[in-house]
């Protein structure tokens, strides 16, 4: 009973701390929030640039070994972020093949790690979405003269509202991970500290209210982004018309 009361107290204290931090526009907090958004946003943009094209192509292309490629891709969805961080660490460490670039414990290292983490998510979900669309009406585009590459681009564009969900999923995966950025960023105060690493640090220091407050701010940021995209999607679907029943279950 005592523990429950204590937990409730910690939670309410955290909410108050989060509100205080937000309202008081604490510069340290907003620097961390801004850095988190910058790292994960850049990583998502890079991953989407490559993953949307690659996924769309995989959704339409037929070649020997495609099944194996897709199996690997789906396996990569489950790779722990610490493993990705470790691989990037080995690549960027002084003795690693890319050590000469001096990117370890920098913003760039964190972006690379999160890009590699998110790339399979974007690729696999885009592939699924485009493959479903291809099964449903790829033949009609083919009948108009669209080859596989053109078809993959057209279908990805046509499924753009479904792919917004992919963007949300990938951004959520990036901004919520802690293992990779901790390993390759080093959680250096004022330099590579992001929200998740700050939460981990405050928890280890025993400052649970601050750690929880940071967590609430993180949730609020992601929630605001989701609401923005949902409103945008609903508005555009009203203008362009809704899906013709091809929305993939994995994304719905």
């Amino acid at each position: 009973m005592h523990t429950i009361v204590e937990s409730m107290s910690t939670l309410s204290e955290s909410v108050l701390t989060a509100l205080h931090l937000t309202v008081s526009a604490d510069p340290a907090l907003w620097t961390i929030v801004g850095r988190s958004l910058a790292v994960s946003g850049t990583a998502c943009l890079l991953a989407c640039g490559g993953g949307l094209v690659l996924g769309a192509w995989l959704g339409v292309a037929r070649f020997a070994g495609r099944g194996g490629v897709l199996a690997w891709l789906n396996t990569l969805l489950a790779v722990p972020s610490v493993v990705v961080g470790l691989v990037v660490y080995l690549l960027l460490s002084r003795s690693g093949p890319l050590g000469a670039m001096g990117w370890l414990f920098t913003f760039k290292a964190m972006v690379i790690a999160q890009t590699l983490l998110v790339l399979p998510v974007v690729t696999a979900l885009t592939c699924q979405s485009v493959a479903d669309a291809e099964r449903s009406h790829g033949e009609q585009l083919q009948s108009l003269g669209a080859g596989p590459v053109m078809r993959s681009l057209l279908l990805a564009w046509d499924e753009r509202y479904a792919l917004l969900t992919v963007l949300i999923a990938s951004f959520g995966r990036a901004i919520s991970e802690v293992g990779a950025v901790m390993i390759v960023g080093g959680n250096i105060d004022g330099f590579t500290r992001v929200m998740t690493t700050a939460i981990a640090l405050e928890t280890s220091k025993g400052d649970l209210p601050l750690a929880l407050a940071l967590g609430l701010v993180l949730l609020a940021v992601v929630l605001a982004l989701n609401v923005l995209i949902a409103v945008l999607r609903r508005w555009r679907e009203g203008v362009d018309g809704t899906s013709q029943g091809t929305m993939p279950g994995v994304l719905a």
Partner: protein
Amino acid sequence: MSAVPAAGAAASWPDGVKVARASLSPPDHPPVFSLHGVGVRYGRVQALLGVNLSVAPGERVALIGANGCGKSTLLRVLHGLAKPSSGQLLRSDGRRQAMLFQRPHMLRTSAQHNVALGLWLQGVRWRDARAQALLALQRVGLEGIAAQGARTLSGGQQQRVALARAWALRPDVLLLDEPTASLDPHAKREVELLMADLAASHGQAGPAHPVTMVFSSHNLGQVKRLASRVIYLEHGAVLADLPVHDFFNGPLPDAARLFVKGEMV
């Protein structure tokens, strides 16, 4: 149906015998399609079996038969969307083809852009394609909704946009897979009139080359109104291939006769 007897052949056919009076193309007008023993297999399913036929320029061929008899597969073979597993398909060179589906797929953009896309994919510059698309929409009476999202349109309107998309290409050959099957009677009538209009026009080859139309349908009234020749398919094989008048007035194999009487759909 390996041989192709001349039109006006025998007056009665024993039950179960395949009937054929396929068109003979004049020497200066080679057939648009020639199929020799074409078969298509999807895994264990034999969708088409030993199909022999030729289609002359300007013919309006109706493919009829029960569901799963191979009509759609034959159309897909003619359009190059399915490859024959056996036999040979010969197409005359330089003809532009367009195909319409039972449920046309509209991309999530305006009706005008949907029509323009077909032209753009054929190499027309986007700006010119948009202008031509507007003309095509005028042709089907939809210029007023050119800027509207294509997916917000009714089924009948979407099929008319699909017809505009096909017409914009100025095809020499038009293939239609049950284009009115999912429409209400009013929309069905509108689309049918447009099909007749389109079939009466000419393709890119010029006024001397009328559009060749091959369509599948379950609507026998529509077949009577639009077709010049009827091909009846059963289990992937051609069972009867006759001019439209002969098909509806002459003797037929049992299965085809029952189908026409509406006892087997």
